[in-house]
């Protein structure tokens, strides 16, 4: 059993640093191996989870009591029609379930988008401009200017000359400044991911040793293949 655990850790470390090896700028077999292992397991996993969902939440109630589950039964039929996509002759059958699911999808995004993304956002931008402390006044005015100028920036069917053009220019600057804030926030998130990953790779000590060995193997291996055996390297790459 210990050997299995050990093998699992070696593989996990190899996959991690195999994927990181793309940062060397050299396409290498470690990366190819890691990537294909990841893709294969991801597809298999998703398939299993989906089938389990269908079994427990859809098929089980229908089999238990078919009469009161007519509508779910129809959904299963529609789902099965989806499978005709793999044939070129009967692919048109799949258009029916596709139509249903796109219509439901478009319907849901539209009906909620209008409330949560338009009305609620506009309501939140309606702010009192005076009669409050100076700081809030300035902030409120700034927010309204930011929103209005950027909305004007996204005008495509009116000519952007005169004052409107100026406003739209301001809108562009606001957008760029805003991108700065969003870039920094996204950066923060990516650091979180990376730190979490490295933390897993550095603790406990046995893992740390393994990590250092794997890093050395991947870097040296890529270097030697690249310098000494370019033909072999080329043969080991996909595509």
């Amino acid at each position: 059993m210990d050997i299995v655990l050990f093998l699992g850790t070696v593989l996990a470390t190899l996959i991690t640093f195999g994927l990181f090896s793309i940062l060397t700028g050299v396409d290498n077999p470690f990366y190819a191996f890691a990537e294909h292992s990841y893709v294969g397991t991801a597809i298999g996993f998703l398939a299993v989870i989906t089938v389990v969902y269908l079994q427990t939440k859809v098929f089980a109630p229908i089999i238990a009591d078919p009469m009161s589950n007519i509508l779910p039964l129809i959904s299963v039929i529609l789902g099965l029609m989806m499978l005709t996509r793999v044939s070129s002759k009967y692919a048109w059958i799949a258009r029916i379930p596709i139509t249903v699911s796109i219509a439901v999808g478009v319907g849901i995004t539209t009906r909620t988008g209008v409330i949560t993304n338009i009305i609620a956002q506009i309501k939140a931008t309606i702010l009192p401009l005076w009669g409050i402390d100076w700081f809030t006044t300035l902030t409120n005015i700034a927010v309204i200017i930011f929103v209005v100028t950027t909305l004007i920036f996204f005008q495509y069917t009116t000519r952007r000359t005169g004052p409107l053009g100026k406003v739209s220019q301001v809108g562009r600057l606001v957008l760029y400044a805003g991108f700065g804030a969003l870039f920094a926030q996204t950066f923060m998130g990516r650091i979180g991911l990376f730190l979490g990953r490295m933390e897993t790779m550095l603790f406990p000590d046995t893992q740390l040793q393994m990590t250092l060995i794997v890093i050395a193997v991947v870097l040296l291996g890529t270097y030697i293949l690249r310098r000494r055996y370019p033909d072999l390297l080329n043969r080991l790459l996909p595509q």
Partner: protein
Amino acid sequence: MSNVLKSKTFLLILAIVVQFLIYIPYFVDVPAPMKTAESELLRFAVNIASFAMLVGVYTATRKEIIRIGKRQKGWIYGVWVLILIWVMIIAGLVLGQTTPIFKFLQDSMLLPGDATIYSIVLFYMISAAGRAFRLRDTGSSLLLIVVVLVLLQQAPIAAIVWDGFVPIGNWLNNYLGMSISRTFAIVTALGGIILAVRFLSGKEMGMVGVKKEEGK
């Protein structure tokens, strides 16, 4: 029968009926059967999506088989992918998700892969920022200054040097960043409604795979 089901008109009517059943109960109080129809339709979409995923497994398998069959360069990786996909499916479905082999593949390949591949983007963000953030013109200078200020707010260490970084960065996040996200939310939602109109009017049947010259 198959001609009716194949026609664009049938699909269009289907799309219109479904969309109405989605909109009306949300905005207006309706009798119970219509509510039921709504909630069932919502589940339809979920179940259809599950079957679509199975089609994805088929396509992936077929792609690898073709690659192996033609002995394309790197076909050996195709064999490896196929083994992983089907060992996982068979182990997971026949023996269950708690089987050691399933757990082994999941913990040693899938989870580390998923966790790593997204964190690689960090490095490209660093290289892009180091390369492109220059005090070149008004726009890029503003971008650079805001980036630095917000970075200083996020780093716990900066607050020790000067506690003014936190309120400045917070203001930029909560009002500047928020304002442009807000504009985007509004504009995107508008785009969504308009797409719904185009779909309802039968102008976007390409969405469901109907080509322009086909059907009436």
